[in-house]
């Protein structure tokens, strides 16, 4: 499996990462090197093997249905570049 230049541009766009035309060939090479490395895994036969989700047998932790968090709007918007009445302000996203 390998990626072409168009795929690199598309992945960058989907991840909203600005990639200049000059950077594409380099990234393409890096991605293909990584894919080739991961590709070696396909040599292992995993028929009938359940995917491992944890190294030790563990159950998912669950929470009780109680309200014990939130009500901290000052903290929530503290890092935002722009706010108004505790709203985050972002460049207009509607057509």
């Amino acid at each position, binding site marked *: 499996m390998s990626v072409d230049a168009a795929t690199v541009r598309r992945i960058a766009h*989907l991840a909203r990462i600005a990639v200049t035309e000059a950077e594409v060939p380099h990234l393409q090479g890096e991605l293909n090197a990584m894919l080739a490395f991961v590709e070696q895994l396909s040599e292992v036969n995993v028929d009938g093997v359940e995917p491992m989700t944890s190294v030790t047998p563990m159950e998912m*932790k669950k929470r009780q249905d109680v309200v014990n*968090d939130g009500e901290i709007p000052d903290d929530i918007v503290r890092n935002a570049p722009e706010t*108004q009445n505790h*709203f985050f302000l972002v460049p207009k996203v509607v057509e």
Partner: protein
Amino acid sequence: MNVSVKPGKLIKGQTGDWEVVIGMEVHAQVTSKSKLFSGASTEFGGEPNSHVSLVDAAMPGMLPVINEECVKQAVRTGLGLNAKINLRSVFDRKNYFYPDLPQGYQISQYKSPIVGEGEIIVELDGGKTATIGIERLHLEQDAGKSLHDQSPSMSCVDLNRSGVALMEIVSKPDIRDAEQAKAYVTKLRSILRYLGTCDGDMEKGSLRADVNVSVRKPGGPLGTRCEIKNMNSINFIGQAIEYEARRQIEIIEDGGTIDQETRLFDPNKGETRSMRSKEEAHDYRYFPDPDLLPLEFTQSYVDELKKKLPELPDQKKARFIESLGLSPYDAGVLVAERESAVFYETVLDGLADKTRDGKLAANWVINELFGRLNKEGHGITASPVSASQLAAIVGLIGEGTISGKIAKDLFEIVWTEGGDPRELVESRGMKQVTDLGAIEKVVDDIIAANPDKVAQAKAKPQLAGWFVGQVMKSSGGKANPQAVNDLLKAKLGI
């Protein structure tokens, strides 16, 4: 599961009949106090970004921990949809960029949902039913909310909804026309409200539907579908399907092809239109969320929840028909809304003789009470006549203390003035006169005063009705009609 699809209403085009194929994705907000993966409140409204924890705002290093109540609610819903419950399910990340999605992905379930295939029976016009298959139900997070009208150049983002638990309930493409689609959402909403797993409030967005519509020649291969997003009214769903089906038929009959796309319904214009520039939105790059272990529970956990499930509308309807002798139509009306069924059952609890008066009580709830409530624009929960008051009125009719006609007057008094129906009947002298001596005296007086009518009635027995009217009139409607009839027949010799 083998569901036989009910044929729907075909649409006539220039090239013959067309069949509409509809599948739905309903997003139902899970009833819980806190969010799916955080301890912030799910309460509707609130100041911007107040019901938000650092998890919901996707601050670095925050980890999701699942709310066990949301898991229970999803399992209960699955059981209510007669569906397969998956003892192991997996949470995945659905990746897309939008300002009101701070994580950059929605935690959802993709390949392994918590609930698999099921089915529900929906009620159609004329007492018919259709069975609609359920494909799956999965748990996922709601996104935040963007407001675009507060400023000319900026959008305002509020994360209060971010992380609230949703159940996405996906139907099979078994729905064949707008009526079936509306009946499906109506029934699904009713089941959720009986279960208490979603409040079903469509105005507040607690229940919204994405509707997939395609058209084909009856029995032919499936057409390309369009998805109408975010419908929050059952009537709009019907209108949108009618419009969208005709739009697609016209395009195909004019030699065009349907583009698979997402559309929005404009209720003011009654039409659907394309949402532009969303073509990349479908590349979600799902992968298992490494922050969450698989969700696992035992069959006995499911069995326990099943034991505690409330009676659902279909079961309640069957019980009303079987044990109280209600007609399927009346039983259907009473169970459609949970509140109506609760009201009717409270009336039943107030009756001394349920077997005798159960059916009469159903008539009174449906005809007198619902009729009056509709006229005044009240919901059942705001009824001025309480269930126990109505039970008293029905009991008074059932035991023969008042006639049906007087009962309507009594109902009117209770509606406008309130009070205990039994006391009102006493204090206002509304009791039906069953004392034969008293009725006989009235009958005798009227016969004596109208010798000409007596002669006529002997020749034409149907004129006896005039005498009944006179007796009822002079007794103020309180004479027992059966007793009056019997006495008149004897006295007039007819």
